[in-house]
């Protein structure tokens, strides 16, 4: 589901993440955003991009054991200001789910916001590679952009622990191998 909202920082989860920060900070980055191209297209922004998604052994094992994973691509559109903090214009979260079907031994990549659009892959690697490439991802603007102003897009991808089965969450919150996310990166908005 593509969500457009101004604030999506759950306090409680942040607290839990703080508890686990010691472990995640020690862990290397497993995800990165290699390239983003954001173009203004009327009342939306079209985004193309390449991501590198590497899962840890624990996460890969869980996926192979039919635990669906939800990756959230998070975008924040900011307006640059010279003499003050930059203004946050809009926030989007694009969820992508990857799951495994044991009988057909295939990995399914789907987007909850787009019904009946799922792709199956014979291997985990193929599925992740497919996930790492997206074209023409449309992000609707809540309001028209101001002329003559400079905008830029921040992007991040992270594994949504809140979507894991409830019984897994405590372990995931306390385990560094489950804290997968990329750094926030900034990309100019091309008009």
């Amino acid at each position, binding site marked *: 589901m593509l969500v457009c909202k101004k604030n999506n920082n759950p306090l409680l989860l942040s607290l839990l993440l703080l508890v686990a920060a010691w472990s995640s900070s020690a862990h290397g980055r497993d995800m990165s955003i290699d390239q983003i191209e954001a173009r203004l297209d009327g009342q939306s922004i079209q985004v193309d991009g390449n991501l590198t998604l590497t899962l840890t052994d624990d996460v890969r094992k869980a996926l192979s054991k039919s635990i669906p994973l939800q990756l959230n691509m998070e975008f924040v559109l900011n307006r640059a200001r010279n003499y003050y903090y930059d203004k946050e214009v809009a926030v989007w979260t694009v969820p992508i789910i990857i799951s495994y079907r*044991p*009988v057909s031994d295939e990995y399914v990549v789907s987007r909850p916001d787009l019904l009946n659009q799922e792709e199956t892959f014979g291997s985990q690697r193929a599925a992740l590679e497919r996930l790492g490439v997206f074209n023409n991802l449309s992000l609707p603007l809540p309001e028209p952009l101001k002329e003559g102003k400079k905008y830029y897009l921040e992007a991040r991808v992270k594994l949504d622990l809140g979507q894991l089965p409830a019984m897994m969450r405590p372990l995931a919150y306390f385990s560094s191998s489950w804290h997968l996310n990329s750094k926030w990166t900034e990309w100019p908005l091309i008009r």
Partner: protein
Amino acid sequence: MDRVATNSLKNIIAGPVPALILSLILLIALLLLSFAAQNTAKLADIYAPLLVVNLVGIFVLLVLNLGSLYKLIKQVRSKVIGSRLTLRMVTMFSLLAFLPLIVVYYISIQFLSHGIDSWFDVRIEQAMSDATLLGQVSLKSLKEGQIETLIRYVPDVENTSDSLELISLLDRIRREEGYSETAMFTQNGRILASSSMQPGTLLPSQPGERVFTALDSNDAYAEQETGVDGSRIIRLAVIVPPSTVGMPPHVLQAIKPIPLRFANLESSINTAIGEYDRLLYLRGPIKFGFIMTLSLVSLMTLLLAVWTATFSARRLASPLRELAEGTQAVADGNYNTQLPVTSHDELGILIKSFNRMTQQISKARENAQQSQIKLVEQHTYLETVLGHLSSGVLSFDANQKLRTHNSRACEILDIEELDTLYNKNILQLSQALAPLKDFFIILNEAILANQPEWNEEVTLFSSHGKQVLLCRGTRLPGNQSGGSGYVFVFDDITVMLQAQRDAAWGEVARRLAHEIKNPLTPIQLSAERIRKKYLHTLDDSQKQTLDRATRTISEQVDSMKEMVNAFSSYAQPVSMNIHDVDLNQLLADVVELHKGHFGQVEVTLSLDDSIPPMMLDSGRMRQVFNNLIVNAVQALENTENAKLLVSTQSGTGKNEKIVTIRVEDNGKGIQKELMEQLFEPYVTSKEKGSGLGLAIVKKIIDEHGGAIWAKNMKNGGSCFTIQLPVKMNRLAQQQQSTTDKR
């Protein structure tokens, strides 16, 4: 906010209510967490918040407990009353809670671990694995069959070069094999021909890049996919070799719809096996979740138990602490201590008893204080009475130790201080006050006689002369130990005796004057008449005898007249002629008057210039000084290096200013046997003296309110000392006051 409100708020915060509310919240949160751990759908979503609430709650409880323990240990180190007992009770209660809890926790962990493991039966796991394998084999077989089928058509396709024929062939293959779609692509994905079940479909389903990638390494591709309409399909693709050498091969693709029943079965099996795999995988996390929940519950229970133990121990020890503090306060002398009664149990009864005890002690103390005050008042009253008695009082206890005296006793006995001699017995007193040794020995004898009443006149001799004391003793009532003391009351009756004696002598003198003076004149007249009548009638020898006899009678009568006049003078009440007198000048005049009589006597006048004019009868005082100087000159007869010293000196007596006059000679001194009665009439060492001179001197001094005494000097000679109070007229008093101030 005022202090009362602040204290109330503090009491509420420190009280059990906040902790109970916190505990209740934590218990509810734990309960919910427990339900959430069991994957209750609604609660699963709030698992994380519940976990946070519990962790925060446990942290708060931990901080509360650590704070309480720190405070308690600090109190123990500071030796606060009751803190040790509280610590002991906290330790005991905590152990009582901890030991069963740790046993239950261990058993629960074991039970939980084995219980969860038992959910996953080995046979079911195997069956699931077999079913998965079976499904995979079936699907593989289906795919392989479909590939083989499609490959059979490859030669036909390879030999068809015409487009229309190719479309016709693809259509035939689609219909013969039940494909939903067949299509021919170049290797870069361009469509050469296609046939579809759906007549309106213009473009066939495009094979993805992965299809071409797969065909790079294999001749065929067969994978399940979800179609655009959500149905399950198998995408089949095979390489069609080029008909002409050098041309690129083509790709033949066919879409085989999976039968709905087969697709449903596959989906169902996928779901079931997926669920089981997931459950199997979640075994560890489930254990972790349950164990964590159990651990949180145990930890919170333990912390609550410790906190409850601390709170209860404080509550239990609080009355004991207050009691101990109250006891300490009583020990420190605060007998009004009252403790609040907060319970009605045994401790409450104990505190009530303590309060009653302190009340009684306080009352007893008040009574004792009142008695003490009364005693002090009585003592003050007694002291005041004793202090204003004209009699001296001395009391001794059963051990003959001095217990009481009054100031008059010191005055009479001429002692500076008796307070320092308290607790000394009577014999020690006689040693400490040597001049009064005889006095105390007599008192001691009276005590030893142990008579209820005792009365005796005691005569003391001191530098001031003879002192007669009238002493009365009374045995005091005995105390519980049976001993009894003695109280002596004594009066100095020396002056009174002297006055009585003087009065007696005065009466004698008056009677003598009256009885003797009257016949003297007739006797003298008769002697004169006899002489006158018979002298010329007698012969010479008789004449001589008569003349001598009448002359003797006349002389003796004159002498007796003089004596009678002297007695009369002594006995007559005197009218004083008081006026301002310069004492030094008066003395100088008298000395000057007698200058012709001094002969070889060396006279020295030593006069104090500071003596103010005094109110005196100058004539009578002149008589005094005449008498004393004449007596001194007479005493100096036949004395070598005869010296006479006349001196004056001003000073301060007990309550007033006095002037001391001394007439001192180095003559033969006063006979000891005369010393006691020196100032009484008819006491004289002179052959021709009437014995009234010093008696009159004393009388004159007495009339001026002074005193006179005499003593023999160590180096010979005697000294007469007169002390006169300085009495000045008002003007002189003002002048003297001004001089003193300067």
